[in-house]
């Protein structure tokens, strides 16, 4: 079934056992993002040290795609420099807008390539991007803070 390309086993695993879910007490920045068309929400805590993502934790409600994607993202950026994290973010955005034409580089995206199938379901792309956009927002805010 076409559906299996969307709901890969990896995704359902992350959905049932999300990584880094549950907000840390400390944070450099906290952001709250919603998906206005379906009501899904995510709160994300980012801890920065120098230029390195020390920790990302999150909480929220959402569908399997948005939850799994947030889980994968938070694990992926953990311990990376902002530059590296943004490279992954760009790769993931490209994958999501590919309409199924590319597979994604698993050296960069790791479990994230399991979400490749989402790009064939335009209405779900926003679900997959929710956590990533929250991270992006948080990272930009954190950087701005530091420069002040």
């Amino acid at each position, binding site marked *: 079934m076409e559906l299996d390309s*969307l*709901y890969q086993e990896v995704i*359902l695993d992350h959905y049932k056992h999300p990584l880094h879910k549950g907000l840390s007490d400390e944070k450099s920045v906290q952001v709250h993002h919603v998906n206005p068309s379906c*009501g899904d929400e995510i709160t994300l805590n980012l801890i920065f040290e120098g230029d390195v993502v020390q920790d990302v934790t999150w909480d929220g409600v959402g*569908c*399997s795609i948005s939850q799994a994607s947030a889980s994968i993202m938070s694990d992926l950026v953990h311990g990376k420099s902002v530059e590296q994290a943004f490279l992954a973010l760009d790769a993931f955005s490209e994958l999501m807008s590919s309409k199924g034409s590319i597979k994604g580089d698993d050296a960069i995206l790791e479990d994230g390539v399991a979400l490749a199938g989402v790009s064939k379901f335009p209405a779900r792309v926003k*679900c997959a991007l929710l956590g990533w956009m929250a991270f992006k927002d948080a990272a930009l805010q954190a950087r701005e803070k530091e420069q002040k």
Partner: protein
Amino acid sequence: MSSLDVAAIKADFPIFQKRMRNDARLVYLDSGATSQKPAQVLEAERFFYTHHNAAAHRGSHLLAEEASTAYEGARATIAAFIGADSDEVIFTKSATESINLIAYSFSNTQVAPFVLTAGDEILVSEMEHHANLIPWQQLAKRTGAVIRWFSVTADGRLDLSNIDQLINERTKIVAITHQSNVLGTIPPVALITSKAHAVGAIVVLDACQSAPHFPMNVVELDVDFVAFSGHKMLGPTGVGVLWGRASLLAKMEPFLFGGSMIETVTMEGATWASAPRKFEAGVPNMAQAVGLAAAIDYLTNIGMSKIHQHETELTQYALDTLQTIKGLNIFGPLDTIDRGGVISFALEGIHPHDAGQVLDQYGVAVRTGHHCAWPLMRKYGVAGTTRASLYLYNDRSDIDALAEAITATQKYFKVS
């Protein structure tokens, strides 16, 4: 046994010939969002364009005359459908525009009962669609008025226990839905209206989910304004209706300004035509008005009472069927008393968005999410629901298909 020949009706709607994913047939259970269109409506629009297209009320040539006749004929059809005078029927682009029109006209008009001052109250309910909530929040913001609301009970009814506090001498507007687009609940409009009128408040009825589904008469309803959309009642997109009591329309300042709504114009100022013209600035959505009239002809040919009866029977069947599914919880009334064919539910362990996605694989089209009624979602503590909404072209086979697909969804996500 249904009172409608659903097979014959379905044959009028070309979209049902389309094959969905996995070559499934279309099980369309999303009429609450928008309805499908019969060939008769598409043909009426096309005929307008190929035989009468010109700017209505703006030319002395034959086409302009015919366009005017077609457009005003559409108005008369809609007026008859709701028991109104033609001059009380205003064409808008949508119910959303209709409600915004009233809210802005309140700001523009300086005579009673349109003047709101700080501390005045606007009463809505917790089950309103955003379209019947945010325009009032904004009006409140502009005027210093206060938004108050009826709560919703656990079983999806309006909580009327504090109605006499909610409707008081400060209440200036009561804006209420005629049927919840999430729960199917039909609030006690007559009771609310009589109490509202007793304190001199204006009653605005959001009839988006009622006008398509059961007979409606504005005189019997006794409310002051009624708003609904064409696209939810077999009509084209891009057309809505606002009905208003003639005596109020006469006092109300216009909302949109431009051509065709004026009496005279100088560089410094302008005066207005009388209703409904003063509320219809610009070259109107003529083809859509004509299409909506064709939709109404289609509905009245079948009979609104028969449609209502059909939907009530089907709703009962759906409620019964869905309740046999383990792990499925229905939001809202479980009987068909004061309740229409909109059924929201949750599947334990499955997010609505995921449920909708799997249902789609079986050709079952439902809506998932907050249904533009976010406060109601908060009330129930959910991010969204899965919603099946019925119309005249649905029958038991559609409900059965829904139930089967739900079971398959539960299997897919291994929650059963």
